[in-house]
């Protein structure tokens, strides 16, 4: 154990940079996107770098990774990268090799795209594959949605880029809170308390303190050494479960998908913005979540039809007004849409006559 290495950190990135990048590091002058999925970066030196972007499932096997490596060896001298949205980028210096690479990719069934005004890969989380708090699966709904929106991955036909994300619970490990369109798994069940387990596994004060709405109180019968939940105050966030495993809030029937829309991250034109609730609940419907897929398509299509050029989804909604968004997309407006969570709620109320009938 004497030579046990710790705290060495990640390898230095330089060893992974292809020579063209090392030579032109910090000297890039401009870029073009000659076709969907292909970026061309031109250096002040005149050097040209081509990146071919391919989509994939984020949940992959080492077999898959080896296949990617084979391609990178064949076309890119072994250099490639992943994007911040889990796409693969093959880095080429020879323009002529783009077509052959694309051909190989097509054979493997890996789509090329995700650039410019496309729907690029969906940022997502673990779901039933690996997490202990999901209301929905992650990889499954993502596959279903991307199958449905496939035409938009490899094209630039939308008014602007559209970023979709999924989080399997309201912890929102994806970028759900700031996405053009987001799926979020929601529970709708008050935690079922396992008193027996609780007294052994959980600290009562920490458990009580974990509830943001103060719904948890000590059990009135002190001999039980457990807690009770004031049901009407529980909004199923699962934070108590995170602190105490004796408080699961899962349910085969009541969990489902909420859709949030209109968020963004970039500062282009309008500042970064949160996604907002569009549909509070769609039933959990594996394996392909058809109602979710359908509603997302509906929103995307209405956006594509209604938005001005260059308008992000949220910018379009802000321009027409949320009341028109609900009308145009034919989505019901419910009590759940109206914020009632503490003081931030006030900021969401309409304190003006600026509304449409």
């Amino acid at each position, binding site marked *: 154990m004497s030579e046990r290495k710790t705290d060495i950190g*990640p390898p230095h990135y330089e060893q992974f940079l292809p020579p063209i990048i090392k030579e032109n590091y910090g000297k890039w002058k401009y870029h073009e*996107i000659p076709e969907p999925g292909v970026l061309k970066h031109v250096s002040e030196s005149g050097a040209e770098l081509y990146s071919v972007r391919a989509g994939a499932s984020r949940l992959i096997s080492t077999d898959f990774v080896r296949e990617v490596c084979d391609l990178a060896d064949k076309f890119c001298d072994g250099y490639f990268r992943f994007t*911040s949205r889990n796409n693969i980028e093959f880095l080429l210096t020879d323009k002529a090799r783009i077509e052959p690479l694309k051909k190989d990719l097509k054979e493997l069934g890996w789509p090329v795209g995700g650039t410019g005004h496309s729907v690029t890969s969906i940022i997502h989380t673990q779901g039933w594959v690996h*997490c202990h708090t999901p209301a929905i699966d992650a990889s499954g709904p993502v*596959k279903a949605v991307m199958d449905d929106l496939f035409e938009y991955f490899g094209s630039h036909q939308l008014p602007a880029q559209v970023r979709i994300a999924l989080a399997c619970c309201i912890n929102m490990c994806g970028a759900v809170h700031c996405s053009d369109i987001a799926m979020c798994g929601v529970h709708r069940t008050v935690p079922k308390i396992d008193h027996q387990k609780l007294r052994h596994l959980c600290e009562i004060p*920490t458990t009580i303190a974990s509830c943001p709405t103060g719904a948890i109180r000590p059990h009135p019968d002190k001999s039980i050494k457990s807690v009770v939940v004031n049901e009407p105050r529980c909004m199923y966030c699962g934070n108590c479960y995170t602190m105490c495993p004796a408080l699961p809030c899962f349910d085969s029937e009541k969990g489902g998908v909420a859709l949030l829309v209109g968020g963004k991250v*970039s500062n282009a034109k309008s500042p970064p913005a949160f996604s907002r609730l569009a549909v509070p609940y769609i039933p959990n419907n594996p394996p392909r979540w058809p109602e979710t897929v359908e509603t997302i398509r509906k929103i995307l299509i209405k956006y594509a039809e209604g938005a001005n050029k260059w308008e992000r989804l949220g910018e379009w909604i802000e321009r027409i007004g949320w009341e028109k968004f609900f009308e145009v997309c034919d989505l019901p407006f419910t009590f759940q849409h109206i914020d009632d969570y503490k003081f931030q709620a006030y900021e969401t109320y309409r304190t003006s006559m600026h509304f449409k009938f």
Partner: protein
Amino acid sequence: MSKTPLLDQLESGPWPSFVTDLKRIAAKKPQVLDLLGQLERSYQEKITHWKHGGIVGVLGYGSGIIGRYSDLPDEFPGVEHFHTMRINQPSGWFYTTAALRQLCDIWDKHGSSVMNLHGATGDVIFLGCRTENLEPCFAELTAAGWDLGGSGSTFRSPSCCVGPARCEWSCYDTMEACYEITQEMQFDLHRPSYPYKYKIKFSGCPNDCVAAVARADLSVIGVWKDDIRVDQSAVQAYAGGELKPKGGGAHVDKLDVQADVVGLCPTYCMSYDGKTLKIDDRNCNHCMHCINMMPQALRPGTETGAAILLGSHAPILEGAQLSWVIQPFMVMESPYDEFKELNSRITEWWAEHGKNRERVGELILRLGMREFLEAAELPPAPQQVRIPRANPFFFWNQSDFDAEAKGRKYYQTEGFDVE
């Protein structure tokens, strides 16, 4: 008949199928067969079959591993233990095939062969390791030059946009800054000593391609202070249709410089008379729109650095927050001393005052911005706020009155300044 009829339905369709991929691995790895079996069960029952967490790890580290146990271990013994290992990715997610093949070898040997490239924080994610394999796997990883990333109440693996490696707009070296800070923070990355998680993300410009403003407690976003560089002849080429808007990435073939660029500038600081594009740079707010539209004509200025924003996180506990500006401009150059010092002041103050599971942004809301800014030794600046307060409920400290007594009228950094 297939044992996974529901999952099988996810093998069709044009998007690559994780089911197909996992199935082929399942042939070699029995635990993946069990993974698919348990997942099918979840698809039937619409409920997860993973038990609540569980603390496992490697020697001396308090992070980097997420314990995961099946609640159906008898039926699916292969996933009885199915822990996550988070391996800190290299800056910008660049790899050589050699490096990635080596990671695959290690993971085939010690784990399930299932992984994510990458996790939402940025790490390489190995999904499915038994407890007894964690340590040997870790040993091989470090031997190969890799280390674990963060988890739990630690500093988390930072990430960065591709920056100067392949982007013409990067206002500082995101790749280097990310690497340097990651190395600097190794101790805090592996040993939980914070009230909760703490993330840093580095974006080279306000396009923010790693979503730093939304997903990192400390968001470092590149910006320029001087003038946008304009190539007027390229502007003409866009106006004439020789160059395509967004370099070809749009649904529109020809740019209308007035309507599409000038007309959509959020600060109205541009004008175009059909020949020359003029920018009133003192009133530009660096939104990047015009640059995005005409990448061959416009570029950020050359007096560059980063704005430092703090506080973002997902909705737990009081609703999501976006990071807010705490320092409008910092020069970002190796060895990043100013940045490191600011970062220490932030984490020290937070570690001292934060409650368990309280993100730094929440602590600031609880204790007040002034208390934070004074601890971080940052002066008040109008860039920190979108809009000043509307309520009249403001405090005066003794230091304000003392300064006032000395004839200064308005409090700034310390004490009042003469008007």
